[in-house]
């Protein structure tokens, strides 16, 4: 190949993000007649999740696909999908925000501040779900006073304070042990993640799908790598991404769906909240949103427009 770009991912080889990037790499190789090759490094073998964005800024890697949660430390507005206004909404509605002008604005801010190029719309992981090892959770009110593991991210921590739960940050890798020793018994994660780590072995028995927030990944190319590509290759990368990203998202949704089934087969009871519970909790959370937005130094005007995009049908 004339151009080889390295891709640094912090998830395992079979994760949806890695699988998507592999398909993208194959397609690029084909469309470029073998001129443009992506070399994929899995499992954080080059950089860990929180460190990927910095490595991109410094030009130490060519391509990274960091989660929104790991970008908040540079651009607070990347936290939109973790805010209360997202609560309970299906992904199609969320795309009104992330794929429209609001999303474009956040991407432009990221590109401007980090000096990277964003290939296009974000990749999906899916909705977060509350899992518990010890008792059924039927409404968010059941979370009051509970210790809940969250992956981090200031917006997520704040959301759990609104639930009057005690959010504790525990790294994904420490979770099985934390569950086995009852350090926590309630966690926030996605069905796909729970399946991949077989957390039923660590005691997970219940799931509550209230669609609290949504996890997306932003595909980024470092300035150094982007600058080395001729214009036609740059166009090819962006166009190919645009052609494929909807397919990746559908696959992600399908995987989450399949994972729910696998988790069920392994003895996890999955509950869905009823409409009144959801809308009531959404109201409670929305009341706290301005405070969270201020606390995180997000742009209130942007958040208002995002909210408008979510409520407009």
């Amino acid at each position, binding site marked *: 190949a004339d151009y080889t770009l390295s891709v640094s991912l912090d998830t*395992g*080889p079979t994760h949806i993000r890695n699988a998507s990037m592999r398909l993208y790499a194959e397609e690029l190789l084909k469309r470029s007649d073998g001129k443009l090759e992506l070399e994929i490094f899995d499992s954080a*073998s080059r950089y860990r999740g929180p*460190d990927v964005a910095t490595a991109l800024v410094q030009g*130490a890697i060519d391509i990274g696909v960091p989660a929104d949660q790991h970008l908040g430390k540079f651009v607070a507005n990347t936290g939109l999908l973790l805010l209360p206004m997202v609560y309970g909404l299906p992904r199609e509605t969320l795309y009104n925000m992330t794929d429209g002008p609001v999303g474009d604005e956040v991407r432009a801010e990221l590109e401007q501040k980090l000096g990277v190029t964003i290939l296009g719309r974000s990749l999906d992981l899916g909705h977060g779900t509350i899992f518990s090892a010890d008792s059924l959770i039927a409404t968010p009110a059941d979370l009051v006073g509970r210790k809940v593991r969250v992956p981090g991210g200031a917006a997520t921590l704040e959301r759990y304070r609104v639930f009057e739960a005690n959010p504790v940050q525990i790294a*994904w890798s420490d979770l099985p042990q934390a569950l086995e020793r009852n350090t926590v018994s309630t966690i926030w994660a996605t069905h796909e993640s729970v399946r991949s780590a*077989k957390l039923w*072995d*660590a005691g997970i028995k219940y799931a509550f799908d209230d669609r609290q927030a949504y996890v997306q990944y932003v595909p980024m190319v470092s300035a150094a790598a982007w600058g080395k590509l001729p214009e036609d290759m740059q166009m090819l990368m962006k166009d190919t991404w645009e052609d494929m990203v909807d397919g990746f998202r559908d696959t992600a949704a399908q995987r989450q769906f399949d994972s729910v089934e696998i988790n069920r087969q392994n003895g996890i009871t999955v509950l869905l909240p009823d409409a009144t519970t959801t809308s009531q909790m959404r109201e409670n959370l929305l009341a706290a949103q301005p405070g969270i937005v201020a606390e995180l130094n997000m742009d209130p005007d942007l958040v208002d427009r995002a909210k408008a995009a979510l409520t407009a049908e």
Partner: protein
Amino acid sequence: MIAVFFGLFLVLLFSGLAIYLALGLSAILAWYVEGIPLVAFSQFFADHLNTPKFVAVPMFVIAATFMERGRISNVLVDFALSIFGSLRGALAYVSIAATAIFAAISGSSVATALAMGKSLIPQMRARGYPDTFTTGTIGAAATLGILIPPSLPMIIYALVVEESVPRLFLAGVVPGLIQVALFMLYVRWRGRNMPAEGAFDLAKVRRASARAIPGLTMPMVVFGGIYSGLLTVNEAASAAAAMAIIISWLFYRTVTAGDIPFLLSDSFRETAKIMIIILAALALAHWLIGQGVARSLADYLNNSGLTAIQVLLIANVIMFFLGMFLEVISVILIFVPLLVLTLDTMGIDKVHFGIVVIINMELALLTPPIGLNLFVLSGISGVPIKQVMRGMIPYALLMFCLLMLVTLVPEISLFLPNLVYGS
């Protein structure tokens, strides 16, 4: 390119430079040639230091330092010897057992080697055990840190292959106990010319145990705290540090208030000595991963049409080779992701393979030129690395036998997890 930088590294290493410098110089040059900016090299150090799990290491070292200087380990050893002292080489058995017990709270072999070496080497020296045997025994036993659960490398492996951590942890128990048994058999065989502490005497036990009570609360709090879920590992390590300081200062009065700051800073330095080697080793491995070195080896395995047993054996050879030069986590990250699909198609159980990987990595901690346990033991005892190595050879051979046994007989590792979680 790989040959050039590895050649450079080996020349620097064997010329007797500080190990971190041999690794660091080769790494920084390799990064430079690769076109990665200098800022990223230093950022890499900052990123890797920013690992909350590492906090337990200096804390355990503080605990061990105060146990040793404050004679807590002396009192505990006296207590253990009052019971088992009639055996020849009693302290060697006690050291292996104590190290295995510590391995059940620490997920890292380096932390295990630091803590146990720091507290046990002076005891064995004082009782006339030769340095080579002492450092070899503790260094080899400390590899149990990653085989007996919990285990950081097992967690990394589980993430890479999507396996369940509780299953892997349980799978390490039986092989870990076998390793303990093999080591003790070796001590028994060597024991003919080892010191013994005299016959069993109930009065002596009573005296020793009374004196050991304050010291005994320490392992009990740490162990109980972690296994009840009350304490995280970092909290338990800090609690151990705090207790060791208080017990040696206020109960045994073997450490004065004025000693405390110096012992604390000694402990940080002891940790820094090893940590900087690990950081530099990671930087060189980071570059090596980018070269796709293991990819060609794995491609061969993936397309060779070999049987499952042949794949396992060849994978062992490759990992042993990588493990000579690289730190444990790096080997797992470099090699295992490339093999995941093969494991599935060949029908190799990923829990079984995980334990094979871990035992192979235990050996990596002992093999030169980059064997972290060699460095740790030499670093805290002042015994030359060459001598430490000689002491570890018999144990390494036993571990090699264990590796073959576990590779060829999956039931040894799988029996327990399948019993508990179903197959």
